[in-house]
Structures are given as C-alpha cells and as structure tokens.
C-alpha cells in the first residue's frame, strides 16, 4: 500500500473535522443496527431461538424469543453505533465496535434460527465452534506461512500452491509408507519445495514475486493434478489411502463445557496450528530472530548495514513458510479427506486475505481466519435449515471484508515496507 506515494491520490487524512474514521464507522454501525432491529425483528418469528450447548438439540440451551432477540440485539448495535458517533475515547473504539458487530450477528442469528422449519429452531454451538476451527485450520496455517514470508519482505501469493503440494505429498508418502508421521514430514517437504522455487526465483533471479506466486500456484495445480490422475486414480489403494491422525483428548481441558468437546478433542493439527500462532507471535516480537526478520522486511539496507544477512534471513523464512503451509495442507489429507484434484480450491487465497485482514500479524491472522471460518460454517448451517440467505453470499464475505479493509474503510492496513522488493546488495 505504501508504495504509491501519490499526492493526487486522496489518502484518507488522520482527522478531517467532525467526520473522523470513528464517527463514520459509528454511522455505519448505527445503520446496521437499525436494519437488524427493524428488518430482522420483523422477519423473525415468535419461536424460541435455542442455542444448545451440545452437538445436537439435546441438553442445556440459551433460549430467547426470536422477535425479541432480534430487536434486542439490534438495539445493542444501535447503541454501540451511537456511542461511536457521539465520540468515545480512542482506546474504547475497538471494544465498542466489537460489541456492536457481535450483537449484529446475534440479531441475525435470532432471526434465522427462529425462522427455521419447525423442530429445527436450534443452533448447536459445539458443532458450530468445532466446524469454525476445522474450516479455519488451513487458513491459519496458510496465513502464518504468509506472515513468515512477508514479514521478511517476500510476497507470498503461492500459499495456495504450498498448501496443495503439502496435501498431495502428505497423501502420497503417507500412503506409500503407511505412517502418518512420514506423511507429515513429506507434506512439510512438499510445501517447502514450492517455497524453495519461490525463494530461488524471487531472491536470486529477481523475478517479480507476485508473478512467481501466481505461476507456482498453477504449477502446483498442474503437477499434483497430473500425478493424481496418473498414480492415485489408477491405484488409489496404494497411492491415495493415507492413514489419518486420530483425535487426541486433552485431559482436564476436554471437560470445559462447550469449548472442551469443541476444541480439546481434536486432532494434532488443531493444537499445532494454535501453538504455532503463539510461537510465531512470540518469536516475531520477542526474539532476536523476529527482530531480524522484521528489520529485513521493513528496511533491508539498514539491516544489512548492521550485519544481518538479508538474503539468508529471507531464504530461511520463505522455506519455513513452506514447511508451515505444507503441514497445513496435510491437515486435509492426513486427518479429513483423501486427496482430490485441486482440493485446496482457493483456500490459499482466503488465507492471503486473512493475512492482510489480520494486518500481517500472527494473532490478527488467527482472528481473521476464525472469522472467515465462522462465515464458512454459518453458510453450511444456514443451508441445512433452508435459510433464505444464499450460501454464496456468505462465501463472498471474506473477500468483501478484505476489500473493505484494504480500501481503508475499517482502518488502514499497512504491509511491511520492503514487502515484494528484491534486495540487491551493493
């Protein structure tokens, strides 16, 4: 974003009189609140909207009358919007915005759940949360791969290809060896292979990084598709029947209501993904490696002057990104499905969106990935209760949200300053 220092481009000023960013967001939120209170309230039925704390309709539940719930949460959104419009201290901006948006979603859910066919007026929270995390997993791994690459100044559009290659080699070598662990290592190597190509061509041959990423995605689709048809389709038993990681229950944590069954009875990839977010976040902001990575991504000349080996740091980080994304690909083939052609199907680009939406920050990327995963899971749920909301529009949500974020409508996002610029020592 920062590259076009174009004065005749109207960059939103920090403060433009009364209509500050906070007030504009407040106005938008107010409009959303009115919409939900009036429209959702009118469309909701008098059925009880039940949010069950289990996998199905049984058990304890949070209940609220549909119409009342939709209007009530709509009013909360209006209140949050009004608060922002009236002007709140800066540190309250995000919490108030968060409350407003959550209330908006709840109002929407009250309408949807109460308007569902009779007998289906419930939303199983455990199911929803588990699904959200499962759908977010490849996004988390992919976005972390993006963080590692881009924080050191190499644009990673090849996330899709890294995930795909990881999924493929995990399935192939897992099947041949019959061991999940061999599969996992192979997946990491597969992802790193695409990364290696990206690194060599971007860092050594100075090929435009976005071009290279796009081409590598196509290469990964081609190679895996070709080998899939030649090997896996002809002899699925030998080449495409990888063993799968079983679920590991974590003692104590698994007994937490709702969260326990949803999160702590999952497979290794879920724990690994969450752990990696933590590790990379601490690594990036608290360790020497992180400082060097960030300095190389922001100002490579300065880093070089101080004795940091810029190219070595970039090579290492890009390869590491491939390993992470490769494992993310394996979270499909070594835990859920057998390999199919082009099975990642655009998840790599949603991961890129999560990376940007999360502002090149591991924790932000995690939250963005969970938000996108939730939208995905919600689409499935709404499809199951015959909702009037087309699932395709929910599927568009991550992309639209990213466009809004990049356009500066919900706060500016800024990439590392040297992201995408090759470094030529000299």
């Amino acid at each position, binding site marked *: *974003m*920062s*590259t*076009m*220092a*174009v*004065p*005749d*481009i*109207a*960059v939103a000023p920090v403060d433009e009189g009364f209509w500050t960013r906070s007030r504009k967001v407040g106005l938008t939120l107010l409009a959303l609140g009115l919409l939900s209170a009036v429209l959702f309230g009118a469309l909701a039925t008098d059925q009880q909207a039940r949010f069950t704390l289990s996998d199905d309709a049984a058990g304890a539940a949070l209940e609220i009358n549909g119409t009342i719930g939709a209007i009530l949460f709509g009013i909360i959104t209006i209140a949050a919007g009004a608060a922002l419009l009236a002007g709140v201290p800066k540190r309250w901006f995000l919490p108030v915005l968060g409350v407003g948006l959550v209330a908006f979603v709840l109002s929407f859910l009250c309408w949807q759940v109460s308007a569902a066919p009779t007998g289906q007026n419930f939303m199983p929270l455990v199911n929803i949360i588990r699904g959200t995390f499962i759908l977010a997993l490849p996004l988390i791994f992919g976005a972390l791969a993006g963080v590692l690459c881009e924080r050191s100044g190499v*644009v990673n559009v090849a996330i899709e290809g890294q995930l795909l290659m990881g999924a493929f080699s995990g399935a192939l070598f897992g099947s041949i060896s019959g061991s999940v662990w061999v599969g996992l290592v192979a997946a990491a190597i597969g992802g790193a292979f695409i990364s290696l*190509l990206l690194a060599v*061509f971007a860092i*050594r*041959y*100075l*090929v*435009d*990084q*976005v*071009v290279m990423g*796009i*081409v*590598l995605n*196509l*290469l990964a*689709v*081609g190679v895996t*598709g*070709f*080998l899939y*048809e*030649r090997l896996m389709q002809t002899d699925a038993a030998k080449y495409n029947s990888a063993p799968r990681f079983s679920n590991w229950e974590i003692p104590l944590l698994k007994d937490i209501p709702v969260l326990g069954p949803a999160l702590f009875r999952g497979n290794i990839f879920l724990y690994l993904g969450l752990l990696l977010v933590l590790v990379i976040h601490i690594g990036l902001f608290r360790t020497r490696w992180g400082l060097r990575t960030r300095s190389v991504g922001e100002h490579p*000349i300065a880093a070089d002057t101080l004795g940091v080996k810029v190219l070595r740091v970039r090579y290492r980080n890009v390869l590491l990104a491939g390993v992470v994304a490769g494992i993310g690909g394996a979270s499909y083939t070594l835990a859920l499905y057998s390999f199919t*052609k082009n099975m990642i199907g*655009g998840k790599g*680009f*949603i991961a*890129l*969106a999560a990376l*940007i939406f999360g502002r090149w920050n591991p924790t932000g990327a995690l939250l963005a990935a969970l938000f996108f995963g939730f939208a995905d899971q919600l689409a499935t749920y709404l499809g199951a209760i015959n909702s009037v909301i087309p699932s*395709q*529009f929910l*599927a*568009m949500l991550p*992309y*639209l949200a*990213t*466009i809004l974020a*990049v*356009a*500066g409508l919900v706060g500016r996002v800024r*990439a590392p*300053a*040297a992201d*995408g*610029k*090759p470094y*030529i020592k000299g």
Partner: protein
Amino acid sequence: MTNPNPQSGSPDKEPASEAQAAQNALGNTERAEVATEPDRSVAKPGPEPEPRPSLGRLFLDNLWAANTFTVTLLSLVLAIVVGAVLMIISDPDVLSTYSYITSRPSDAINSSWTLVSEAYANLFKGSIFDPEAFSGWLNGANGWQAVLAPISETLTYAAPLVFTGLSVALAFRGGLFNIGAQGQATIGVIMAALAGFLLPLPPGLHLLVAVLAGALGGAIWGFIPGILKARAGAHEVINTIMLNYVATYFLTWLIVQNGVQDPNRTDAISKGVDSSAQLPRLLGDNLRVHAGILLAVLATWAVAWLLNRSTLGFELRAVGANPDAARTAGISVTRTYILIMVFAGILAGLGGSNMVLGSTASALTPLVVAQIGFDGILVALLGRVKPWGVLLAALLFGALQAGGNRMQSYSGISLELVTVLQALIVIFIAAPALVKAIFQLRAARAARLQTSLAKGW
C-alpha cells in the same frame, strides 16, 4: 515510501543489473571458464581474433545470444524436457525398466522414448497438423475438414486467451498487475449470456449487444479495483484477487435463479444462448473455429494502436514507467489508473463473451470461464506484454490446449500436463538468467521480462 531502488519501478529494466545477475548465476555453476569469456559488449564471435566474422557465424552467434526469441525457444525446450521426465516417473511400467538399467539400458531408453515421443506426437497432431488426416483426404477417406480440425481447435482455444492476455498486458504497461482478468471475464460471461438469452433481438444486432454486454460487465469489474487504487491507494493485486472469487460465487448463485436456470434441468446450468447471439462459425458447422479469433486479431491491433499511437497510450506508458514523473508532466495519474483498469476489464470481458457466445459453451455453468483469466497472465508474460507477442503466445497456449486433448484421449496422458508445461515455460522465461546459465548463452540485452514491477503490496 522511499523506494531504495528507483529504477526497479520502471518497466524497462536496465541491462546492467541483468548482466550482473547473469554473471552471478554463471559464477555459481561449475563451468567457470565462461567467466573468462572476452568482453561481452563487443560483438565478437569467440576467442579467435578474427576481425571480420562470416555472416553465417554472426548469425549463429546472435542466435545463441540471450535474445528474446532464443530464451523463449529454450524455455519451451526445457519445459518439454521436464514434462517428459514427469511422464516417465509417473508411468509404473516404464519406471520398472529403470530398475535394471545397468544390465539392459536399451529397455529403459526404448520404453521411455516410445512413451514420450508418442505423447508429444499426439500433442502436435492435435494442435497443428495430422499426417493421417492429410493422407486420408488425398485418398478420399475423409473430407478436408479433418485436415483443418487441429488448427480449428487451436484457434478456438486461443481466441479468449488473446483477450485476457491483452487485458493483463495492457495493465502491466501501465504499471498495474491485473490478476482480476478471471473475475472480469466471469462477469463478462454472465452479462453476455444474459443478453444472449433474455433479450429478443434480431440476428446481428443481438450478437453485437451480447458482445458489448460482456465488455460492459468486464469494465464494471475492472472499474472497482481501478477506483479503489486511484482514490484509496488500495493495492490492485489484493483487490483483483478478492474480486475474482466474488465474481465466481456470484456466478454460481445466479445460475440457479428462476429465469436463468434451464427449466428442464436440475443441475446448475442456465438457459442456452439464442442462436442469433452466437458468433458465426468460420469453416462450417463441423469445425469449431468461430469469428472470435477475428475479433481477437482486431483487438490486438486496437491495443497495439492504443499503446503506441494514441495519447492515452502514451500517458499509460508514462504512468507505468514512473508515476511521479508522469504527474510532474501534467498527466492525471488517478484518471489513468481508472482508465487502465476499465480497458483491461473490457478486454477480459470480451474474452468472457467469447466463452459463451462462441463454440466452447452456449450456456452458463459454474466452470464456463475455465481458467482463461489465470492463463491470460501467463500469456501476457510469455508475449512479453506486447500486443502482437500476446497474440502469438495465445496461439501457442491454444495449441497446447488443443493438442493436450488429443494427448489425453490417445496416449492417456492427463491434460494437466499442459498446465505444467505452461507454468514451466513462463517460469523459465521469467528468469532468463537461469536459461542463460543452463545453456551457456552469451549475454545480450533486452532478454528480460519487462514486468518486474517489484513494488510490493
């Protein structure tokens, strides 16, 4: 903000860094003797101190210099070699002969040769010329259509790629990376198809309206990232990627709506485009080649004129070369950015129209656009972001596609190999230094892709 390497934004890479990169690449290979080659800037044929080299020698030397043509050709060769390796390692029968290669090498070599040569022969026969069809025509076994069928297929596949390739190339010249040709073509295909089956218009006019509707759809989808770039500084790469998916989901939603979906079908397919809105076929109903390829040539000419002869083209290239300098010279950069993306969108939208108004499909399906937008990026790069180069590159890609179909049905080699070949060709031409290092080419200028934007997000 401050670009540490101001030249890198220019589409015209300085040859100095090019030669340097080449030398770095050469230095790391084992053959260090190349580094001792005499001064490269002088067009001397070789180590012998001959004052006037013969014409033939000069020709050979220039041929082996790293010019655009040679690098492209050698990239093609490299891609074909890697493709052959992939074929061999994915064929268990052939691979098994390699287990005893030391005792009987002829087995491995023969079986590999049979496999690879047959596959590539089918690739050729399916895309350019089939000798059997020709002899069949001579002795009356089949009509002349069978002789032209491969060319017809090639042109059919090439036509939409010309448009999307031009779309990407035009944006490149203006300093923008249009990854959104896919989305623009998707909206184009939607608008063209809707105009094709919803509007009751007379033949001729109907076709014109449908084609223009496709262009309009693409223009809208190009305008969005254009205005976001110009007004909010939002990076067009991110926005076009995101809009691609928005367009795809919109298409899958639209197909199953009342009034759009074919009432006799339960699966996701729309009504068919009226015959009055279909592009006429050029060589009779048995051959698929249609007027789209003529439109494509026309579009190539128009883009070439726009870029090289018009005021807008000059402004566009100036902005692409250096936006700051262009602004100082009085060019409105914001206006140019928006126009670039709108024109790019129009071209991609026309490519979309080709998909549904031509002979590839006549109704909307979720996959109606195929990969033309992404392939367009490769085509633009292979064509060195020059309009006539794009046309040639699109013909090559169309030929690979057409030949790939025959390779799949006759040799059982998956069509995906074509994707691999296409990606590999572009990888190699994008890194001429690598090709030079592999083939020990003499360094020459202007072999580099003009697309190293190197601007980051």
